[in-house]
């Protein structure tokens, strides 16, 4: 089984453990993830903040390359990339004039035939059906599943899970032997794109998230987005100084947690790369 794969920039750099764990899981389930050749950055928050044309053209090039490569489905683990690609697909489908403007002026061939899967959709479709027998070390911990903004909003376009109190990550973790907790900050924003330019905001926003998870007894926070991860993990100093206490709950990618449950090697899953030591 071969699926397309769009890692996005973070998974090649600061969040490479996410890529490592996605690929390790795929391998364990005999799935070949074929990277899109010569892919470019989706433009992330910067592009749509600054220049609408760019924010559409960059993702269109990616989708167009995937089409050229004959890929039908592409797995996009980064929630931000997933959002950009899905929103672009939606806008081009809604507005044919815009679509031809974007494709023609940039010489891109695009039909909109590629479907974009976020990590949960990928796991649901290709991993969970065969998961049960493979769980050797149930991830027996209380987990706070954190969805962030871009995985579930805007619902009108993404049509994935429910916007308030989503459940898809919780269900996956339940199947991996974990106990998901009911908490209040599943979809509150972590500060995302302000990580570098306004670290103080991130400390406050991510602080509330980590604080609530801790108050409700979570042993680990589960995420599905490199931006969420870097804010909640790498920015822990800012978080701790906002909260005025030292909290050392680790933050795991969903793929790392499932990887552990099926007995994959910690190193293969990139756990050593985290700032907050993974003790679970």
């Amino acid at each position, binding site marked *: 089984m071969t699926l397309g794969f769009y890692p996005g920039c973070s998974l090649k750099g600061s969040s490479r453990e996410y890529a490592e764990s996605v690929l390790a899981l795929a391998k364990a389930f005999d799935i070949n993830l074929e990277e899109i050749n010569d892919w470019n950055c989706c433009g992330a928050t910067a592009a749509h903040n600054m220049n609408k044309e760019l924010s559409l053209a960059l993702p269109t090039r990616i989708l167009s390359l995937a089409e050229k490569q004959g890929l039908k489905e592409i797995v996009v683990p980064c929630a931000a990339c997933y959002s950009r690609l899905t929103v672009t697909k939606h806008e081009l489908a809604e507005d044919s004039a815009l679509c031809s403007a974007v494709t023609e002026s940039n010489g891109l061939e695009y039909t909109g035939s590629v479907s974009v899967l976020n990590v949960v959709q990928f796991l649901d479709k290709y991993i969970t059906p065969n998961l049960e027998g493979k769980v050797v070390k149930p991830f027996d911990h209380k987990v706070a599943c954190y969805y962030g903004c871009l995985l579930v909003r805007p619902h009108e376009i993404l049509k994935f899970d429910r916007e*308030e*109190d989503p459940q898809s990550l919780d269900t996956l973790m339940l199947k991996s032997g974990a106990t998901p907790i009911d908490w*209040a900050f599943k979809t509150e924003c972590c500060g995302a794109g302000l990580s570098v330019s306004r670290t103080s905001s991130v400390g406050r926003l991510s602080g509330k998230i980590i604080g609530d998870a801790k*108050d409700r007894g979570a042993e680990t926070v589960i995420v599905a987005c490199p931006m969420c991860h870097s804010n909640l993990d790498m920015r822990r100093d800012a978080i701790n100084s906002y909260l005025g206490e030292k909290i050392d709950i680790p933050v795991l990618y969903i793929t790392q947690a499932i990887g552990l449950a099926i007995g994959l090697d910690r190193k293969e899953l990139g756990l050593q790369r985290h700032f907050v030591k993974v003790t679970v």
Partner: protein
Amino acid sequence: MSKIGVFVCHCGENISATVDCARVAETAGNYDGVAFSVDYKYMCSDPGQNLIKNAIKEQGLTGVVVASCSPRMHEPTFRKACAEAGLNPFMCEMANLREHCSWVHEKGEATTEKAIDLVRILVEKVKYNHSLNEIKVPVTKTALVIGGGIAGIQASLDIANTGHKVILIEKDPSIGGHMSQLSETFPTLDCSQCILTPRMVEVAQHPNITLYTYAELESLEGFIGNFKAKIRRKSKSIDEKLCTGCGLCTTKCPVKKIPSEFNEGLGKRTAIYVPFPQAVPNKPVIDRANCTYYIKGKCKVCEIVCPTGAIRFDQEDQIMEVEIGAIVIATGFTVKQPDFFPEYGYGKFPDVITGLQFERLASASGPTLGEIRRPSDGKIPEKIVFLACAGSRDPAKGIPYCSKICCMYIAKHAMLYQHKVHGGKSYVFYMDIRAGGKQYEEFVRRAIEDDGVNYVRGRVSRIYEKNGKLIVAGVDTLLNAMPVEIDADMVVLATAGVANEGAEELAQKLHVSYDPYKFFAEAHPKLKPVETNTAGIFLAGACQAPRDIPESVAMASGAAVKVAALFSKDELTREPIIAVVNRQAPPVYSSCVGCFLCVSACPYQAIEKEEIKNRNGEVIKSIAKVNPGLCQGCGTCVAFCRTKSIDIQGYTNEQMYTEVMALLNEY
């Protein structure tokens, strides 16, 4: 050959100042079929009317055109005069020379020419008029009232007090509706039970009212004055004649944990139950879905303890047929449940409740005996938050309209809370305060000024639970949208008032229209608020839109008067301006081809399908048939019919074409 009389009026100087009346009369006199033509100073005066009457008798006129003022003014006058002279009143037409000619144009040739044209078209029309008779329908002087809330109760009493019979059906085991659940009522804070219970008892004892509780409408046919209704009386599993209402069964029934509908789930009831102590009738019913005997085949404790042997496990639903002349729909409304608000917890938090639940908490007869205690742990909330417009005015996820009653009951709730919990803090998050009623604004001001309720203008973004508190996150939009976060002990949602489940189905049974929100539609938003567009069916209370008690009662009395007016005569007479489908000799029967376009066009559901059968009872043809009791004479069907098979009396195709042709072809 027609013998038509033309009577041209001067209206003093009103017409003759700009129109040459004599010439109009003279010209008309030369038209084919005109046997008599005259002009006169005041046609509507007694001498004027006599002029017409005499001409009819002396000349043997077959038609009359009075050329004077607007028919909206004097058509009844002249038709009556014709009838008195022995001419069918519908053989009289009026040309409007005053409002449409002399008053709006200058004196001159063109004005007189126009007057002549106006007379001519009606002369031509009248040639095609037919004698018509007023339609008479008998009236069954019994009213059916559906729904026993305050609106249904009021309507029943008012009709019954005019001396007419009423059948009141209520789907629940007791009448009372939502008002029976309320604690105290705005704007006076009098106790709801205290003012309602006497009326409920009056209904039960009134000699003119037959009350069927646990009963619903099964089907309806017929038309104004002559409806036939089938009523399903659901089995109560007791013999009401034997039951004395002693209540022994309800205390002994072992199934005690069923959430009480009356207490909005905040209290429990047994399987055999009376919904509340003051219920009318005060006799129990068995809730078969929850009774052990019906589920498992054994128990019968109630039967054993009943001193009168009133329990009837094998009782079946009864279908009754009744004949009635008018119907009042008073089925009320319902409120949205909190499970619909994702950002307010999808109904997850037990201490986020609805306004109706708060009523039960505040009610002296409620599950907490009137103490405000939160459902989760029975603690008295020190901080309470009320959210206005919860689901109302929310096109994205709720309903776009304003539920109208909640602004007022929130003020009442906050007030009651402040009266009952000393030192408690209450907050109301609102967008606008809609207090447009007598004493309403003053009431809200009292809550704010005297009772210290904190009103914050802003819509709450979300509610979450933390350390046993409900965190309510909003802003104060009057302070540059400054964040306001309240750690409340309890939150009350003023959830949207919506149409009853099943309202649509009931509307279809009754052939009345409903609006996009499934509230029943009134016939005219201003001038016919209690009528439906089906003659003989009226509306009262919150089934038409969210309404408070004063409005529901006013509507109910209004509907009752409409019913009483209908019942004041033995027969109904109506103008025969109605549609008819043509009938011809076999084998054609009618030129109608049975496309039933007219059926979908008619705003009054007045057209039915009729099957023409041969002697063996086989259907030969399906054609349209107008029910004269329902048709209001709009003529929409006529314009729709492609085969010109349906026509409207008084405005027939023949007449209208003739008018157009007469108008444009001068003599």
